[in-house]
């Protein structure tokens, strides 16, 4: 497949791996932020091919994983309202709330529908004017422009039966929180390719300078990932730190200016709670005042509450790169994809599901 096969070339990957081995002289911990990259690393076995001195830890870049339990509960509560059609991405359907998931709610009569694109939810609102259509909008800077377009279209069409339940989060404040935490052991970051396709990498430059962190924008194929790892290792070994782009075919420094503009028009930056991590200041989006009429929490009067995670789930530590899935006593035993304890196992992007799918039998690295 064009623009895929070239970046899966095993000979080229082998060459880059060799160069990494030759460059590294001491142990380094590198975090890939994006859950899609975690899966690519595990699927291609890159973690097993790297020199022992390089340890990859997996970051919080899994939208489903970091959506707080109370928002899952809010979505379930809304779905059970007779007037509501609750729509969301497929990944969210099986995430356990404190009592049930959205699929269970649907089996109890809730009108829950999976959509591929938030514009499909606007279409439902257009076609079902007697219903209130709520799109449960989660994710990072990659899905925010999509929800922004959906709600701006609803406003343009004067649809008063379309609402967003917003739980959007942002990567840069999360990196700052991780770097500043006392348990931090990460030396460098692979930045999420698609988040940077939207936002560019300019907003990471201040973080890289402030914390002296090597940061490299990285894609999803083996050559992309290894090239990103080589770039951070070269910086680490030479004692330098800056933001580099190794996903040049997709990402520019400024990102997608149209998408950024609409995000700025539709959303305001607010404090957000992250599942497993806690509240991070100024780390997410909420609808701005000009779109408040479309805010499901305001319209339905949903109150905030904090719900505790299952005691035997360590997904919080995994999302912060403090532990790896095999470190969890429940991993592969009482916690598996059919019956997950936490979101890192239920989500297709979660680190636990990646390890379960690709590396259950490998030894802890």
């Amino acid at each position, binding site marked *: 497949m064009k623009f895929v096969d070239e970046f899966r070339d095993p000979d080229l990957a082998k060459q880059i791996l060799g160069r990494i081995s030759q460059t590294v002289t001491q142990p380094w911990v590198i975090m890939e932020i994006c859950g*899609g990259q975690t899966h690519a690393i595990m699927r291609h076995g890159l973690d097993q091919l790297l020199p022992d001195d390089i340890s990859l830890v997996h970051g919080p870049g899994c939208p489903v994983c970091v959506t707080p339990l109370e928002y899952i509960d809010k979505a379930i509560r809304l779905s059970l309202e007779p007037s509501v059609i609750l729509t969301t991405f497929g990944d969210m359907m099986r995430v356990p709330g404190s009592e049930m998931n959205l699929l269970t709610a649907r089996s109890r009569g809730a009108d829950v529908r999976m959509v591929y694109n938030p514009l499909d939810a606007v279409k439902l609102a257009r076609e079902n004017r007697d219903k209130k259509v709520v799109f449960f909008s989660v994710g990072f800077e990659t899905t925010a422009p999509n929800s922004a377009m959906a709600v701006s279209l609803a406003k343009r069409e004067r649809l008063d039966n379309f609402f967003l339940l917003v739980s959007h989060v942002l990567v840069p404040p999360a990196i700052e929180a991780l770097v500043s935490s006392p348990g931090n052991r990460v030396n460098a970051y692979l930045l999420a390719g698609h988040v940077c396709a939207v936002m560019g990498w300019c907003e990471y430059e201040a973080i890289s300078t402030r914390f002296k962190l090597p940061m490299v924008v990285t894609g999803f194929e083996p050559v992309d990932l290894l090239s990103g790892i080589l770039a951070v290792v070269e910086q680490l070994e030479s004692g330098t730190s800056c933001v580099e782009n190794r996903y040049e075919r997709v990402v520019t420094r400024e990102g997608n200016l149209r998408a950024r503009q609409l995000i700025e028009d539709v959303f305001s930056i607010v404090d957000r709670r992250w599942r497993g991590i806690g509240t991070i200041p100024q780390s997410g989006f909420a609808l701005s005042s000009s779109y408040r009429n479309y805010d499901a929490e305001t319209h339905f009067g949903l109150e905030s509450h904090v719900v505790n995670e299952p005691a035997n789930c360590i997904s919080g530590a995994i999302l912060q790169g403090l532990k790896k899935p095999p470190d969890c006593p429940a991993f592969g035993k009482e916690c598996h994809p059919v019956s997950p304890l936490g979101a890192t196992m239920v989500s297709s992007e979660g680190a636990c599901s990646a390890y379960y799918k690709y590396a259950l039998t490998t030894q802890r690295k």
Partner: protein
Amino acid sequence: MCLAIPGKLLEVSSENGLRMGRVDYGGTVTTACLEYLPEAEVGQYVVVHAGFGLSVINEAEVERTLAIWKELYESAAQQGVDIHGRKLESDTTTNETPEESG
């Protein structure tokens, strides 16, 4: 999930005032919103995330990136070493590229 596979833009249309397109992923065709890619043209490859085109693949950058690796690979091979300075063996794959390109 971040779908990293670029799709080929087959057709551009308008729907409810939005720029839309049909995108082909090696035989699987889906619809994507192209409002954020006003510059995308039929025949180009685009990165789509959750139904929205986010970026047009920069083909010049693809060629540049691969050319840099190839250059390193070949210049090292001409000196009888691989790109990390180890002596090449006659039957390794590292000898193949210079021969092919030559």
